């Protein structure tokens, strides 16, 4: 319907009618309006005064109406035109209409024009408009002015721009990060509202924390060097712009500098002149804020609208992107999870082949075949890789579970591409649609290692069970009950049955205090509790157990298993214990006997000493007397005796002398045997030299050639050792004195454990067949008439060396000399440093 006016009705009515129609239909096209106004203008031009209603119409119109005369001077403007040009009619009247336009379309005076252009307001604002011109002609048809109807396009352009930016941002968001998107948005916004600062913050749901998310490129480059991207900080610490979060409404500070409640800006922060911050609210909570700042002029409501729209747009895109990212991430995670899952996920038909609808790629690792092989049985069926021996069993189990509509768990073997057998575990369930089974879904994983381990465990268990059954130790396991106040039998091996004279069946499940009432008295029970609490093994030795049924000694080793059970490994040591006791008794008897013997021996020794003493003292005295008186007889009465008589006396004296020597030697031998060794480091070289010197000086006529090795210091009893050397050397001298040139060699050798000494002469020697007699007491190999001596010397040597844990030996050959050797342990050779 067009708001045509009827010429017949009075103008005021017509205008009223027009206004009413316009109110009913505010979207009335400008052309229609222009036409009507045209008519009204004509009427006005024809000096038909605009009546009150016509004036009202013009005043209420949202479009600006400017009337110019033919010279281009402004004659009329309605209030909308005043608003648009930011000048009053009174100020503009008679001013050139061209001044209002950025570029004035001159053709409007020639013809009717409809086009868009910009007007420049009195305040210098550039406003996009659509203009519609119409010539005004006088009654003769001669043009005398023009009427311009201007429609402000700002809004329209803005929404166009918004749409454009929106599209741009959507497009941008597809291949840029959220941060980049925010920066891009801010760049657009700041350009749009002519601001040098732009920021976009996310606000966490607590409404307390602002998450600095993005700054416009300009802001980042020129202003906010306070590097705070991504920083969380509390709104209470934020600047006044954060009021928009607190109050959930846009904030405009066109007088920021003069504000008193602003916070100090951080160092490096841009100087703020004015700012505008708008919140994005979702579910009554601020989710983000977009702020701009430092526009050269004040922020207007249209700025607010634009910023608002873009803040919303930006949030929507960002949120969608976040959600998309999340969805993508979730999808990726799921895929990764499936890929990394240590097992195969499947969905298959409940048919003979287990035809696969889906199978995760992990099946390749499991079977060596790609998942694609099994999907729709393309290359092979899953059933074909199941071990033939397990086929029927798993089918039975699965069908059973499907009937009951419960999940199933099965273990079976598969044969891999390399013909290996692997054990798998499968858990699955039927997927039902009301009544019908749609598919089987489940999970298969490799349990070969576990199976192997189980088998080994079984074997090892069998082995240990074997050991437990057959060991000669008693092995009993208990479980603690009543928090360790008693123990119940869980195992009892055959040896324990035998030892305790009770069967396994009789004890299992019973309390130890019930079966073995004596266990508490024995102290073992406390050990059980101790081990059960501490977990540390205990050894409880030679425990005497006794009750009415069994008694005996037990050697117990008690420890705790990782399962918490207590195990005792023990032995019946009753027999051993008794044997030990017997041994102990025998030992003490033996000790007593040794003591007795020692006492007896010591008595015997004392007696022997007394005997020796007697021999030494009492036996010699009569000899001396015989000797003495024979001598006196010879001296004083020899003349009275015939020669024969003198000879007898001489024989008596000689015999007595000889007996004296025998007694002396015998005593010496006895002493050598009885004497306790007193060992000291003894210089053999010095000792031997002393003896040689003594012998040489005793027989100055005899020229003996001595060849003596460098002799060591040896740990020995020096008095006895001197006797050894003296006996051996004097022996050598004695048996070589008849040689023209006696040579006596004294040698020494040693190894790590032993010193070897030798005394070698070139004398009469001896026949080796009598060598065994050489070291016997009173054994002589030569006639006493040839060589003096009692036959005790070498026996003494042998005794002394034996006491030193050495060995004597002799080698000889008749008339070629003899070598006597003895060894001594090389223990302490403190040899001359």
């Amino acid at each position: 319907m067009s708001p045509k006016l009827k010429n017949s009705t009075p103008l005021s009515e017509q205008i009223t009618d027009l206004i009413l129609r316009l109110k009913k239909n505010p979207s009335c096209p400008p052309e229609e309006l222009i036409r009507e106004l045209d008519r009204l203008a004509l009427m006005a031009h024809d000096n038909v005064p605009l009546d009150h209603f016509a004036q009202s119409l013009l005043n209420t119109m949202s479009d600006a109406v400017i009337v110019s005369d033919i010279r281009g001077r402004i004659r009329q403007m309605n209030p909308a035109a005043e608003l648009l040009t930011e000048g009053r009619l009174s100020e503009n009247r008679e001013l050139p209409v061209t001044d209002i336009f950025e570029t004035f379309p001159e053709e409007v005076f020639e013809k009717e024009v409809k086009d868009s252009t910009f007007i420049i307001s009195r305040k210098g604002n550039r406003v996009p408009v659509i203009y519609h011109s119409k010539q005004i002609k006088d009654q003769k048809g001669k043009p005398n002015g023009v009427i311009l109807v201007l429609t402000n396009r700002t809004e329209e352009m803005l929404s166009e721009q918004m749409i454009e930016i929106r599209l741009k941002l959507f497009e941008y968001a597809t291949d840029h990060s959220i941060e980049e998107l925010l920066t891009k948005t801010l760049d657009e916004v700041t350009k749009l509202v002519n601001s040098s600062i732009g920021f976009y913050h996310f606000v966490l749901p607590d409404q307390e924390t602002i998450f600095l998310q993005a700054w416009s490129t300009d802001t980042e480059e020129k202003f906010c060097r306070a590097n705070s991207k991504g920083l969380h900080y509390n709104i209470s610490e934020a600047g006044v712009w954060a009021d928009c979060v607190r109050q959930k409404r846009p904030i405009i500070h066109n007088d920021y500098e003069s504000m008193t409640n602003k916070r100090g800006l951080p160092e490096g922060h841009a100087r703020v002149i004015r700012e505008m911050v708008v919140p994005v609210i979702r579910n009554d909570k601020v989710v983000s804020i977009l702020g701009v700042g430092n526009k050269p002029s004040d922020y207007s409501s249209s700025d607010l609208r634009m910023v608002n729209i873009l803040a919303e747009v930006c949030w929507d895109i960002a949120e969608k992107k976040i959600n998309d990212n999340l969805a993508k991430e979730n999808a990726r995670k799921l895929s990764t999870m499936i890929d990394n899952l240590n097992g195969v996920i499947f969905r298959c038909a409940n048919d003979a082949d287990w035809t696969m609808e889906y199978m995760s790629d992990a099946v390749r690792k499991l079977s060596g075949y790609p998942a694609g092989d099994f999907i729709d049985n393309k290359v092979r069926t899953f059933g074909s890789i199941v071990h033939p021996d397990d086929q029927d069993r798993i089918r039975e189990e699965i069908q059973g579970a499907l009937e009951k509509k419960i999940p199933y768990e099965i273990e079976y073997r598969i044969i891999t591409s390399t013909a290996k057998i692997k054990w798998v575990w499968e858990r699955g369930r039927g997927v039902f649609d009301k009544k019908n089974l749609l598919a089987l879904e489940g999970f298969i994983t490799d349990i070969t290692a576990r199976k192997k381990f189980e088998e080994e465990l079984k074997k090892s268990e069998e082995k240990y069970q074997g050991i437990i059954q057959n060991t000669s130790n008693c092995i009993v396991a208990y479980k603690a009950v009543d928090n360790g106040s008693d123990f119940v039998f869980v195992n009892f091996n055959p040896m324990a049955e035998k030892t305790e004279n009770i069967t396994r069946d009789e004890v299992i499940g019973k309390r130890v205090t019930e079966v073995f009432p004596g266990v508490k008295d024995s102290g073992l029970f406390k050990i059980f509790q101790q081990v059960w609490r501490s977990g540390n093994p205990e050894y409880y030795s030679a425990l005497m157990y006794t009750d009415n049924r069994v008694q005996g000694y037990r050697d117990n080793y008690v420890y705790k298993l990782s399962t918490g059970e207590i195990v005792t490994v023990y032995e019946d040591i009753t027999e051993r214990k008794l044997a030990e006791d017997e041994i102990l008794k025998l030992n003490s008897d033996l000790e007593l006997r040794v003591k007795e013997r020692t006492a007896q021996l010591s008595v015997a020794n004392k007696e022997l000493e007394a005997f020796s003493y007697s021999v030494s003292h009492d036996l010699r005295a009569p000899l001396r007397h015989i000797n003495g008186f024979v001598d006196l007889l010879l001296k004083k009465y020899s003349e009275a005796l015939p020669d024969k008589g003198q000879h007898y006396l001489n024989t008596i004296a000689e015999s007595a002398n000889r007996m004296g020597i025998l007694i002396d030697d015998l005593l010496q031998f006895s002493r050598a045997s009885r004497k306790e060794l007193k060992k000291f480091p003894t210089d053999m070289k010095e000792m031997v030299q002393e003896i040689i010197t003594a012998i040489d000086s005793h027989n100055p006529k005899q020229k003996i050639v001595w060849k003596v090795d460098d002799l060591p210091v040896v740990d020995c009893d020096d008095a006895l050792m001197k006797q050894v050397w003296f006996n051996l050397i004097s022996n050598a001298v004695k048996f070589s004195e008849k040689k023209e040139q006696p040579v006596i060699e004294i040698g020494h050798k040693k190894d790590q454990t032993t010193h070897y000494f030798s005394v070698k002469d070139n004398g009469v020697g001896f026949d080796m067949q009598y060598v065994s007699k050489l070291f016997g007491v009173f054994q002589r190999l030569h006639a006493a008439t040839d060589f003096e001596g009692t036959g005790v010397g070498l026996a003494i040597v042998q005794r002394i060396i034996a006491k030193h844990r050495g060995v004597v030996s002799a080698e000889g050959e008749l008339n070629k000399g003899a070598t006597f050797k003895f060894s001594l342990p090389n223990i302490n050779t403190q040899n001359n440093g």
Partner: protein
Amino acid sequence: MVKLKTILLVEDSPNDVELTLEALDEHGLVNRVITVNDGVEAMDFLLCREKFKTRPQINPAVILLDIKMPRMNGMEVLEAIRNNDKLKTIPVVILTSSREEPDLKKCYELGANAYVVKPVDFQQFIAAVRQVGVFWALINELPPQK
């Protein structure tokens, strides 16, 4: 006048006494030998008691002391002498048949001045006794008596 130096021979065996005196006789020392038969008598003599009550209280120049004797043996005598202030400076020569080491050791520990084993050979015996007698009775100067 030279003081009469006496030799105290403590010997239980009459044979030994006779032989010892024979040996000492060679140097004319025999007259100065006083013989006692055991340790008890020896102490009586030295302390001038019992049958020696009347003898002049002069210590012998040397005591020739046998070890093995009845009643009080030589070592007991030696110990008594060394523990007696009046007697302890008297030289004591052990004249014995024993060559046993414990005897030797003990005698020296008790303060014997010499230890002579009586040789079985009489010539050697004479030589030994004579030397002992000559040394201790004639040559050796006694420490001054209190």
